[in-house]
């Protein structure tokens, strides 16, 4: 006879059984029984955030940097609705998180009770799955299944909505076996071996192959990044990556082309355009990657390895879809390649083309002795920190693209950014979550002055939990990417993209008990970065950069890979309506 306990205790016990060490959250009326159960135990650490949205991004940062699922605990109503942006963000970027929301008691559901909202309805289409638990006897099985769903197949966010009376009512809890509540949930992990064989033959036959890799490789675990390196070594093919996949392949490799897509390098995009074979590995042909679809990689055969069938043929028709875990697929390709001792094509002519494109130096930027160029600031930051293998998070905008372009990543799980949803305000809470999961790591949020203000309250979280995150703000006083698009598309009419009345970030840092630093001149840059790294505890750096610098290279929305703008003087002032309608 298993003794009965409250739903709140069952929840904590199930989380403990699942190995959860940290929960990011914020208490409130409908979740008080769970907070009381948390108070009485010692296994799970709770990180109190300052707004629920911060908790979700922190859980994302924790998950992305540790490979473990992130867990969030919030109350009903506004607690749940504040979490929605982070949940949608985790869905777009396939981040495994479990969000537990309090709910009004079951008898009050639907009565417009205080702090009631239809959490299940609101989150239904921005979660991988969600549950309303009305019976404490089911709670244990739901929690275990939620973690399984969040972390298996294509990872994603799962919401468990827990009415207050279910947190108090009692039931027996037994650690469930492998049986799922949903018998139909069986993600295809193992790729079809005949397709792997065809894929390997296609790679061996290709004269101009490119590996186009994405966030799926990071999600597939550190082993997948090693398989990618091995596969690249065996085949000799060049490698490019999406924003989300940075770090899976070392930026120092001669086979590395840099990021592709809208702000990718000239060589990566030209290679995609001229390739005879594209091997997409855990990438989803996002519009930021493909540019104009009818001009995307027109001469290539395409292999697409993805664990999510719905990613295949969604925007780009492929010749060989391989459904399964990308790590397993690469492992199988490596084994087959070695067993067959396949001769590969002479890729020297292909690399000669690539070298010629590289010589365009598409990431070059103008020098300045009076202003700090933002690209230079990132390069200096890289030089000062790369030996420590830092974890870098970003907000969203120009600074994010400059970080992706100029900060060379060597390892997976070191790059935390909001790729799919593009959520400003992601970087600081994500850095906090990463620092919680990696207490000894150097964690830096490369931020813009506009984005950082979107979750600025989380400075208080870092202070409370003594998390020594560094926030490096590239401050140009504009919403730079908005202004850049206004330059390119709207004749330089800067509608609402200038930020009046910015706070004094140094004083702000001090107000929160952080160290605040300001860097204003190029000659102060290295010392400023050194001071940031030398300071104990959290540091905010207000790095004043060139105000009107724009992020290049750039493929304008709806243009082909071959139509890259390399420098600002190629920018046209106004676009037609069809171009304006594109995102």
């Amino acid at each position, binding site marked *: 006879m298993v003794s009965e306990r409250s739903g709140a205790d069952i929840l904590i016990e199930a989380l403990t059984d699942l190995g959860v060490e940290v929960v990011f959250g914020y208490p409130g009326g409908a979740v008080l029984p769970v907070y009381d159960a948390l108070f009485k135990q010692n296994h799970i650490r709770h990180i109190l955030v300052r707004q629920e949205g911060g908790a979700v991004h922190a859980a994302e940062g924790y998950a992305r940097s540790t490979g473990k699922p992130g867990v969030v605990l919030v109350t009903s109503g506004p607690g749940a609705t504040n979490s929605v942006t982070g949940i949608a963000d985790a869905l777009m970027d396939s981040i495994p998180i479990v969000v537990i929301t309090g709910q009004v008691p079951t008898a009050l559901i639907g009565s417009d009770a205080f702090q009631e909202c239809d959490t*299940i309805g609101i989150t239904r289409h921005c979660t991988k*799955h969600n549950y309303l638990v009305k019976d404490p006897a089911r709670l244990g099985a739901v929690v275990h299944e939620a973690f399984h769903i969040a972390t298996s197949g294509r990872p994603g966010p799962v919401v468990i909505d827990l009415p207050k009376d279910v947190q108090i009512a009692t039931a027996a809890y037994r650690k469930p076996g492998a049986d799922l509540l*949903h018998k139909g949930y069986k993600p295809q992990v193992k790729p079809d071996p005949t397709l792997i064989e065809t894929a390997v033959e296609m790679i061996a036959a290709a004269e101009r192959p490119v590996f186009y890799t994405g966030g799926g490789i990071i999600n597939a675990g550190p082993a997948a990044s090693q398989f990618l390196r091995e596969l690249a070594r065996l085949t000799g093919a060049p490698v490019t990556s999406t924003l989300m996949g940075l770090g899976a392949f070392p930026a120092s490799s001669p086979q590395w082309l840099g990021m592709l897509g809208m702000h990718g390098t000239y060589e990566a995009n030209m290679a995609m355009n001229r390739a005879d074979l594209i091997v997409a590995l855990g990438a989803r042909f996002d519009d930021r990657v493909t540019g104009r679809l009818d001009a995307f990689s027109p001469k290539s055969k395409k292999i697409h390895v993805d664990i999510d069938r719905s990613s295949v043929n969604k925007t780009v028709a492929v010749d060989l879809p391989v459904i399964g875990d990308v790590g397993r697929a690469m492992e199988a390709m490596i084994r087959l390649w070695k067993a067959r001792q396949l001769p590969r094509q002479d890729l020297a002519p292909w690399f000669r083309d690539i070298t010629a494109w590289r010589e365009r130096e598409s990431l070059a930027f103008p020098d300045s002795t009076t202003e700090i160029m933002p690209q230079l600031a990132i390069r200096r930051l890289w030089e000062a920190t790369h030996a420590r293998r830092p974890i870098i998070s970003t907000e969203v905008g120009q600074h994010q693209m400059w970080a992706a372009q100029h900060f060379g990543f060597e390892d997976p799980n070191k790059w935390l950014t909001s790729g799919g949803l593009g959520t400003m305000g992601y970087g600081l809470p994500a850095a906090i979550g990463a620092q919680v999961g990696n207490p000894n790591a150097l964690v830096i949020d490369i931020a813009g002055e506009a984005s950082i203000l979107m979750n600025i309250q989380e400075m208080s979280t870092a202070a409370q939990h003594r998390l020594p995150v560094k926030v490096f703000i590239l401050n140009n006083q504009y919403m730079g990417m908005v202004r850049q698009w206004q330059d390119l598309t709207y004749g330089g009419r800067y509608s609402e993209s200038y930020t009046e009345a910015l706070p004094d970030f140094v004083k702000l840092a001090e107000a929160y008990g952080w160290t605040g630093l300001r860097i204003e001149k190029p000659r102060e840059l290295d010392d400023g970065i050194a001071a940031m790294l030398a300071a104990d505890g959290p540091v905010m750096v207000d790095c004043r950069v060139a105000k009107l610098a724009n992020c290049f290279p750039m493929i304008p929305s709806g243009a082909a890979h071959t139509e890259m703008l390399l420098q600002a003087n190629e920018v046209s002032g106004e676009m037609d309506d069809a171009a304006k309608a594109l995102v």
Partner: protein
Amino acid sequence: MHIKAEDAERHTLSVLVDNEAGILARIAGMFSARGYNIGSLTVAEVTEDEAVSRITIVTEGPPEMIDQIISQLDRLVPVHKVTDLTALGPHVERELALVKVSGTGDTRIEALRLAEVYRARVVDATISSFVFEVTGGSEKIDKFLELMRELGLIEVARTGVAAIARGNEAA
């Protein structure tokens, strides 16, 4: 600038799902969120233990979109199986309609005569009206309604399509 429409095909999809709260909203919401069209949708429990429901969806779109719809349905956690009956080939589609027609004299007699041709049953009658129950494929019902419209159609209730593969095996 104008927005272009693409050529569409009509497909009947049969979806087996866990019978749980919110499943219909999950399916219907996926269609609206991704801009897919639902022509008709029927749902009912189909197993003895009431654990599994069959949802029959009639949708329209270009072939790539139909493929996407199937993949998107398939990745919903409570979905067991998605079958494209149109692509599969031989299958039976049926729908039931209740059709209220009002009229007197010749039009009333003509309505009753046509109902016989369409094997519609009279399930309610007053001196000046009938309610017909008619089953069949959607086209047959469309045609019957077209005729009744000329004879005094008052209102219609349709079930939407239920469909199943032919032969001795589950699709």
